[in-house]
């Protein structure tokens, strides 16, 4: 056991998977000698050499496109995109090829690729360094989408992602990269992709969130003094709808919290499914606390954009009072 930040837990997962599987290599901008702009790949270049830790040219489509080829060729590439705002140039290679190769070839060629991407707001970064595009990749069949909210889950999920035979977009909530530490086993373990985690049990209401927002949910729940069940999705696609539905059947009320804009966010899918599966159980409409339907503002206003304990608390009261 070690007391690690989220960055350190991911770094450890990378080292351990590279140690135990030759096919794993890391590529991306500044991931080599510099150890990545968030230092997530710190020490890897020294340990494994430039052959396995590759500073790529500044070209996201190139990173993902060659990684698709590497994966089709039998390796297990872990590509880093420096910020979620720079996934855009790689969108086409991800959605047109990584997501489609297995079904296109009816299993003949597959893409066991992991794409690591820092995500989300709250660190006073420049434009395009604070977005939350998880719904975009969830709407694209053929991908898996993961977003841990703790060091323990981050390590276990990243190991699962690297070993997964299909492409996984692994979003790392940068706001909590170093926000807190947690006991993380040094031994090998995995957290399965596709299983939500009940962070705390409760009977009055269900709250669903993921990534950095989970912390705000906890704070809001504590401030409310209510008996609320909090679910951290951990994996966004495939959605562990059973855990959510079981909870809402019990509590009859639900609030969903995420950073991305409201419209067509993951919250809309969750809300629709909860209604479809728990129609007769629901005592109040499912509420969504999300980013507004605006471009994530520059940092002077970012905290006014992001859901916080205050807004979540309002949703709790509104939902309870309905």
């Amino acid at each position, binding site marked *: 056991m070690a007391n690690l930040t989220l960055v350190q837990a991911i770094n450890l997962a990378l080292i351990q998977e590279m140690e135990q599987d030759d096919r794993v*290599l890391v590529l991306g901008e500044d991931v080599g000698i510099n150890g990545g702009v968030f230092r997530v790949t710190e020490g890897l270049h020294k340990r494994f050499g430039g*052959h396995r830790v*590759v500073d*790529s*040219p500044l*070209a996201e*489509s*190139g990173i993902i*496109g*060659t*990684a*698709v*080829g*590497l*994966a*089709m*060729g*039998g*390796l297990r*590439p872990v590509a880093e995109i420096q910020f979620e705002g720079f996934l855009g*140039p790689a969108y*086409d*290679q991800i959605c*047109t*090829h990584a997501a489609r190769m*297995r*079904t*296109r*070839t*009816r*299993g*003949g*060629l*597959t893409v066991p690729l992991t794409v690591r991407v820092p995500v989300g707001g709250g660190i006073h970064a420049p434009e395009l360094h604070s977005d939350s595009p998880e719904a975009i990749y969830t709407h694209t*069949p*053929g991908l*898996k989408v993961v977003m841990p909210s703790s060091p323990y889950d981050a390590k276990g999920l990243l190991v699962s992602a690297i070993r*997964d*035979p*299909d492409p996984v977009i692994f979003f790392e909530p940068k706001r909590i990269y170093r926000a807190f530490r947690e006991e993380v086993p040094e031994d090998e373990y995995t957290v399965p992709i*596709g299983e939500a985690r009940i962070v705390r049990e409760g009977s009055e209401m269900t709250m669903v969130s993921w990534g950095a927002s989970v912390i705000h949910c906890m704070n809001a729940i504590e401030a409310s003094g209510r008996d609320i069940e909090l679910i951290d999705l951990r994996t966004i696609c*495939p*959605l562990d*709808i*059973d855990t959510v539905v079981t909870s809402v*059947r019990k509590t009859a009320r639900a609030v969903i919290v995420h950073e991305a804009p409201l419209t067509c966010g993951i919250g809309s899918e969750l809300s629709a499914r909860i209604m*479809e*599966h728990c*129609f*007769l*159980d629901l005592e109040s409409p499912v509420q969504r606390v999300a980013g507004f339907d605006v471009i994530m503002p520059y940092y002077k206003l970012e905290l006014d954009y992001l859901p916080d304990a205050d807004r979540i608390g309002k949703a709790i009261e509104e939902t309870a009072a309905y």
Partner: protein
Amino acid sequence: MPISSVFETKIERISILDHDGSFDESLGKGLIPDQDAVALYRHMMLCRQFDEIAFKLQRSGRMGTYPENRGQEATSLGAAYVLEKSDWLVTCYRENAGLFWRGLPMEKILLHWMGDERGNQIDPDLHITPLAIPIGTQMLHAVGLAWADKYRGEKSISCTFFGDGATSEGDFHEAMNFAANLEIPTIFFCQNNGWAISVPTKLQCSAPTIAQRALAYGMRTIQVDGNDIFAVVKAVRDAADHARKTSQPSFIEATTYRLGDHTTADDARRYRDSDEVEKWNQQEPMIRLRKYLEQRDLWDESRQSEMLAKAEKVVAEVVKNAEEIEDPIQTDMFDSMYASIPENLKAQRRTMRTTSLGQDPSQLPTPNTARA
């Protein structure tokens, strides 16, 4: 020194077997043994026959859109002839000749255009990727595939094919740049056939050659007569040797011409002159190869008609196989989405014909849920 020179270069063009049948012995001698030259010509005849029948299948409503390959046989075939079976062929959609030479069953290509993913289910030992529909995107995969082989210390390389139009896409640039900077042994093979649907090459590349695109990366580059299989063979052999020796990429621009429409959905008369087509009809790759063989008594009219009959028979059989394959089952669309199907996809699969999708039985009230 106020003005100095920091870079100088020139680009060469190779042509060995001209369209009038004249042959340059200095470069061409021994390049392709006689029996191989015959085999290549026979293969071209087979491909031409396939192309004609595929076109007719579309016209008679038995197949979807199809891009004719006619006139471009020498390019991918020359490359496939030179390369090892362990080398990757990463193609677009006008490389039937090369793919068939490598060993891809011909019905696969028909199945693809018949709207059936099984056309892309390819024996992995063939080292072939599926036809690439999104233009310009597959070169990056070729770089990744050759990189994977290099990573493992294998000597294999990759060769990727694309059109003149494809060189306008950003992914083309990124693939070339990755290969050059990371020293990946990929051959970039541009089939400059003069057109990208209705857009002439000069609107994709106003430079005098496409070959010079490679100068941007300091990459070895050459232009060849792409309707001259000898020139193609020489260029690919040089590039492959170079790649295996140095792990460096190369670029080849092969000038050729698509004699047919862009696809069966296109009508090329809307945008190009019949004179131009006529000129290229004289310069297409088969006539000149036949002249070459006939000049050396390796071919004659009787072998020609014998081979034609054989090609007709083979292709008829291929069509039969492609058309007789059992229909895919509806649930096939779920089965290759992931290595193992997630629960909610399983539910969709299970209920796809029995419910509206929305109302999966699992969303109905559970017994212990009372109706309000």
